[in-house]
């Protein structure tokens, strides 16, 4: 799918860009998606559908932040819900003290940076399963604080009545705010991912020792990547709390972090629109399918298993593969710009199999 763009840009850091019809189609698809998203409230969608779309976009923003770390840095975080919750609690606490929404933003930002820094400092020396465990632990810590520190967080009851700024009070304006935030966050993560910084991150993902011997400060890169990812997660946390006007410890729950990883894997690790697709699947199953099917958790589980078994690259990644295969067949020849599938010597890192073969992908299976 459109994540093809990511690859083309990846190429650019290593050599001259290659442009073809596919890329044009990707751009067109992105534009069409954006136009469709912009037009949604005008297409007769009810306020419920629009606010459900906001929910999907917020989940997608949060999943994007996980995807950025997993895709570029090979760091699968099991604690990102904790960062979003820290941000949400910052806004919630400010609201409980009677501060206006501007101050809520300040507190949310402060909490986000503090939480991201703690996560980053504790996890920057680790990778793989150890990274996963450290982020899980810090996430549990935030959950525990939210649950137990009731004088500040309201305990299990949480904090309610958190108001967003008045100008975005109506559901459809808020939808555009969320959409704008998602587009900007995705664009920023994409730009960072394709900058020299992103290339270095991928270098660290593929071989930490080589990058270290080349003189890169691996820890600083990891910390930097975590701060960027954490900021996006904090943004999603603030958007979520303004959407629901409410925050409780379950926001920080480990099941929420697991859901995020499910979204990322469903969509496709390291793809541009994977988080959006994954978030849409999970949110729709959870909120719409569950109205019609009693055993909806089973269906979500089956979808996940099927994706892992038959479409390891996720929905976005596998659609792209399928599309490419069809195109190759129609041309009666493999595309000239690609190495052999699963080739061993692809120097430019464009082989999609590389995404599938990252160690963290295996850890999760």
């Amino acid at each position: 799918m459109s994540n093809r763009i990511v690859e083309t840009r990846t190429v650019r850091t290593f050599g001259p860009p290659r442009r073809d019809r596919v890329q044009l189609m990707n751009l067109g698809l992105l534009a069409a998606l954006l136009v469709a998203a912009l037009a949604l409230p005008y297409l007769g969608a009810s306020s419920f559908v629009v606010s459900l779309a906001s929910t999907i976009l917020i989940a997608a923003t949060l999943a994007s932040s996980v995807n950025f770390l997993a895709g570029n840095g090979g760091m699968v975080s099991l604690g990102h819900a904790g960062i979003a919750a820290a941000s949400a609690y910052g806004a919630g606490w400010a609201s409980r003290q009677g501060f206006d929404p501007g101050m809520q933003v300040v507190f949310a930002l402060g909490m986000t940076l503090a939480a991201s820094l703690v996560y980053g400092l504790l996890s920057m020396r680790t990778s793989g399963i150890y990274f996963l465990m450290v982020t899980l632990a810090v996430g549990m810590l935030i959950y525990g604080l939210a649950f137990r520190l009731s004088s500040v967080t309201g305990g299990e009851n949480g904090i309610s009545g958190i108001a967003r700024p008045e100008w975005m009070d109506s559901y459809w304006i808020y939808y555009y705010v969320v959409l704008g935030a998602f587009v900007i966050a995705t664009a920023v993560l994409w730009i960072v991912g394709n900058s020299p910084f992103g290339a270095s991150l991928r270098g660290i993902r593929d071989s930490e020792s080589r990058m270290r011997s080349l003189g890169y400060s691996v820890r600083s890169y990891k910390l930097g990547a975590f701060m960027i990812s954490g900021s996006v997660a904090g943004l999603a946390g603030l958007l979520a709390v303004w959407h629901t006007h409410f925050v409780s410890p379950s926001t920080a729950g480990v099941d929420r972090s697991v859901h995020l990883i499910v979204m990322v894997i469903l969509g496709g690790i390291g793809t541009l629109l994977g988080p959006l697709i994954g978030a849409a699947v999970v949110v729709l199953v959870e909120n719409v399918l569950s109205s019609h099917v009693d055993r909806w958790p089973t269906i979500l589980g089956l979808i996940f298993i099927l994706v892992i078994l038959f479409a390891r690259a996720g929905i976005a990644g596998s659609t792209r593969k399928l599309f490419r295969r069809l195109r190759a067949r129609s041309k009666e020849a493999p595309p000239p710009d690609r190495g052999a599938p699963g080739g061993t010597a692809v120097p430019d890192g464009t082989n999609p199999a590389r995404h599938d073969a990252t160690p963290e992908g295996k850890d999760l299976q």
Partner: protein
Amino acid sequence: MTSTKTRGRRSAGRLSALKTAGIAAVAALALTACAPPGAAEPAPTSGGSSGEAGGTLKVGYISPTTGNFAVAGQEMVDGWNLYWDINGAEVDGITIETIVEDDAGNPETSLTKAHKLVEQDKVDFIVGPLIANTALAVAEYTASVGIPNLHPVAASDDLTQRNANDLTVRTGSMGGSQANFPGGVWAATDGGYDTAVTLCADYAFGWESCAGFVQGFTQNGGEVLEQIWFPNTTTDFSTYVSQIQAAGADVVYVATAGGAPGPNFLNAYQGLGLDPDKLLMNCCALDQGTLRAMGDQVVGVKSVSYWAEGRDSAAVAEFIDAYKEFADGKVPGAYVAGGYMTASLVASVLKEKGLVTGEDLVSAITEYTFEDSIFGRVSWDDYNQMVGPVYVREVTAGDDGNFYNTPIATFEDVDQWLGRTPEEALAQPTYSQSFQGLE
């Protein structure tokens, strides 16, 4: 996303495609300047109507029927459905139509489901959900759109205290502190105990339950020696039981939120050979789940709750017989009772007032005195909280092979203020480990 640095033969075509996309995007942006058609729709009726005969009352019922709380959530739904199955889903020509939604115990899902029920299904009121944080989240939303919210099970004190509003009413349960306050009073007076040790779940519900008990106990001259807290996930209670043994108090008060901790605690307590006569438990530590698991072992153990399935009353007998038929001979617990109570209350109010919705429905409920409910005589206070009887109960074996919590003492008209005025009570901090309402 739109790089205009185009090169090569196809640049013209690409440019025009980009232009088209750009124009479309700009057009869409321009559209956003004016409100979409849906935004102008009037908000759901908030004034409410009253006194009409006939019609349909649409009810949205949110409950966690999957996930960690699935058993309790399903029981809550069963209670509601059971009443309408017995009595027919029609009251004086008003048809009751229920849409059940699953929230999996997750506040975000709960809220989305509430939005769906209100905005898409246009329900007249919402019943549920079950878990405290989901209940508080939904109550705030429904109040903001003028839809009544009835709570059959949720026990959080704040639902009808600090977060009270005109459209939220608790119809099938009591707050954590309210339901346990009489337990403390009873222990210090009729129970004849002088000193107590408490063991409560370490989160809001446990803090509230314990606060109710210790206030009732100390206000009547009892002395609390020690308060012990356990994480909700505890499975091995032996260390806590040793602490209880070491405290050497006359009475041991135990509050869990239901589920496995109740039987696990009792096994540890009896395993160490401690005296079951000294025990006083809350609603949920000795609910039907515990009774079914422990059976004979817990006969005679005492507890305190607003629901007593062994109470001698026509309403309770009718309810229990119907549920036994429905659930293969099982006796209903407090969650089923909450759902059933809410349904019978709605039916009684509709009988008296005709079709009422919005605030009129809430005021019709709160002005109503339900003389012969399954809980006994129940009325509502200014904060829309139930004022009714609380029973000190003892486990007895029934003729049918089931075990029942049978009342041995009854406190009528228990309110949620624990002997204070509402203003005094609301000025306090919320209950926690460190604040239990004691001076």
